[in-house]
């Protein structure tokens, strides 16, 4: 969501609220001052729901608007360690709380692992009030929608024979090579190879462009991702190695159930093309579609 400046020392903290996500708590009985969630957080911390104050909520607001509520636990220290397994456990725990919040309140606005609001409950209330419009807009834009990830991998590129059969010009070069002098034949052979490479590449581009336009037609939002999954500290997406194959494109999309099923059908067609494999995963909390918050916090 946002980044602290590069620093080696983790920030010190006396009182903080670890924020997992923000949910829409409208229509819920928020009379209890601190409703709890049926899940424990990092290090088994009890997780609470902190709705925006009713004063702020009612102030010239439409009743149909979402009621932002932060899912938090109290913390007095940052979560920092060199132990990767520990970090992994925390990240999984972080994810579990977001999933539980999603089950209970609908699509959550997920926060990155290790987002901490400095201060006590007042700081959270202040922040909710300050970011009210942004939170409401974001919750409205993701309501009833989830993130899906799409990877298209080429397991087997079209063979040289296939390409030559499709391209008369390349086939002609190939025939010329058979009759040319040794040196010229070598260069013609290289020319055919270069041609095949170009055709394979243009097939990648065609698959990607077609898929992108299909996704744009059906999804509410589409992001194209780097073709090589990086280190994903969020840790929620499957990023296992593509042991054998070439990544053609990767997308993440925001879609409701109907759109997801339409996209699934469209992806079946892509997967039916020779040598291609499609991975379609989700629904995930919409990490890629959450807004960026200003680092300027409560004064």
């Amino acid at each position: 969501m946002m980044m602290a400046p590069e620093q080696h020392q983790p920030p010190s903290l006396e009182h903080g609220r670890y924020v997992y996500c923000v949910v829409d708590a409208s229509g819920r009985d928020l009379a209890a001052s601190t409703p709890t969630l049926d899940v424990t957080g990092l290090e088994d911390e009890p997780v609470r729901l902190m709705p925006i104050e009713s004063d702020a909520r009612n102030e010239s607001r439409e009743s149909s608007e979402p009621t932002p509520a932060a899912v938090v636990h109290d913390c007095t220290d940052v979560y920092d360690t060199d132990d990767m397994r520990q970090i992994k456990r925390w990240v999984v725990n972080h994810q579990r709380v977001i999933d539980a919040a999603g089950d209970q309140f609908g699509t959550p606005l997920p926060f990155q692992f290790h987002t901490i609001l400095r201060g006590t409950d007042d700081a959270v209330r202040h922040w909710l009030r300050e970011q009210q419009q942004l939170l409401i807009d974001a919750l409205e834009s993701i309501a009833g929608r989830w993130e899906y990830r799409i990877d298209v991998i080429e397991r087997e590129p079209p063979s040289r024979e296939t390409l030559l059969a499709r391209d008369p010009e390349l086939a002609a070069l190939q025939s010329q090579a058979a009759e040319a002098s040794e040196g010229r034949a070598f260069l013609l052979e290289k020319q055919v190879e270069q041609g095949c490479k170009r055709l394979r590449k243009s097939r990648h581009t065609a698959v990607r462009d077609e898929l992108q336009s299909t996704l744009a037609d059906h999804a509410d939002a589409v992001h194209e991702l780097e073709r090589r999954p990086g280190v994903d500290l969020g840790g929620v997406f499957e990023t296992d190695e593509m042991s054998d194959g070439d990544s053609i494109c990767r997308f993440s999309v925001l879609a409701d159930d109907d759109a997801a099923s339409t996209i699934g059908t469209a992806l079946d067609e892509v997967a039916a093309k020779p040598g291609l494999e499609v991975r379609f995963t989700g629904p995930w909390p919409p990490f890629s579609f959450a807004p960026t918050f200003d680092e300027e916090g409560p004064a």
Partner: protein
Amino acid sequence: MTRIDVGDGENTRQGLLTLVITVVELLLEAMQREAVRRMESPDLSPEEVDRLGRQLAAIEAEIEQLKTDEGIEEGVDDLRMELDGLVEDAIARLDVDAESLEHPGQAVIGGDDDGS
């Protein structure tokens, strides 16, 4: 960040050789592309084209032999794939909002010190 690891101790020689051969291969391919382009031009006689082709074929054969002798065929392939990806991603990145590529980090929102 992509780092090219040439290994250490006894592996250093092989690692370094892999790197050198990879670079030479890329250079050779550039030369081959240029030769193919010139083949079409009237500047070169058929004899010259033949000689050029034979020379490039000989260099390629020499490199292949060297890779086999040193057992670095796989290493060179892997490194080339990484370099390809690196270049393509670098080009792709030009179109992508840099912000969306930032990795997650620590985030503490608000205040210079504790208290509110």
